[in-house]
């Protein structure tokens, strides 16, 4: 399923160029401990997190994640956004919680047969 369609259904607000939204999403991952995401997130996953630190971009690049969704209306600083743009990692925002965002994403992806 395309990131663009998910972003539309979940009303996610992209902070990075629209071109990145053409990516395919394989599943979701929720986590705020960078070491945990480094160890366990799967390639192509959307990463749902509260972290806004610039290091999230490096993790997303390393794990080849499809996007980072920052929840609870948290705003990353300019460093994080610049890095996401230069590394071509889609960065999206939502005012909803991690629980709700993951819950809805799970339903959408489950319907497409994408378990995790």
């Amino acid at each position, binding site marked *: 399923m395309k990131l663009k369609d998910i972003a539309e259904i979940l009303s996610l607000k992209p902070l990075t160029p629209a071109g990145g939204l053409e990516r395919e999403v394989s599943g979701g991952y929720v986590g*705020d*401990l*960078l*070491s945990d995401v480094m160890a366990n997130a799967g390639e192509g996953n959307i990463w749902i997190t*509260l*972290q*806004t*630190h610039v290091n999230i971009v490096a993790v997303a690049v390393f794990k080849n994640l499809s996007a980072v969704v920052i929840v609870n209306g*948290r*705003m*990353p*600083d300019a460093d994080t956004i610049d890095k996401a743009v230069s590394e071509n990692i889609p960065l999206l925002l939502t005012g909803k919680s991690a629980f709700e965002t993951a819950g809805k994403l799970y339903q959408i992806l489950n319907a497409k047969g994408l378990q995790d």
Partner: protein
Amino acid sequence: MKAKIDRTYEGSFHIVGGDFSRAGEASTELKSILLNVGIDEDTVRRVAIATFEAEMNIMIYATAGILRYTISPDEIRVVAEDMGPGIEDIELAMQEGYSTAPDWVREMGWGAGMGLPNMKKNSDVFRIESVVGEGTTVEMTIRLKDC
């Protein structure tokens, strides 16, 4: 009618920096003291959360610090004073998500820049003073609600 606090209670806890295994013990103890003297659960939760954040900040950033509390018929006051590095830009530090915490603290589930906002959110009056190289003092007042 206010909660039945007929006198003033005072006490303090010493906090040692860096001791993660004991982090939160002072706040937990204050929580049970507040429940014992008959403060309502909502107010206890607010005081406990604000105090816990203050305790964690001392634990994470300072060499040592002291938490003092006063429970009086109208309000609860908690003052957290530390011997720490101090805060250069308080306005910046108050922003949600701003943090100077090192990675190891982030890996322990802390240091994501919500500590000071959380103390402010749960206090009716919140004051902070800091001198770089000397330390930081946070004063939090929570009024007892009419019930």
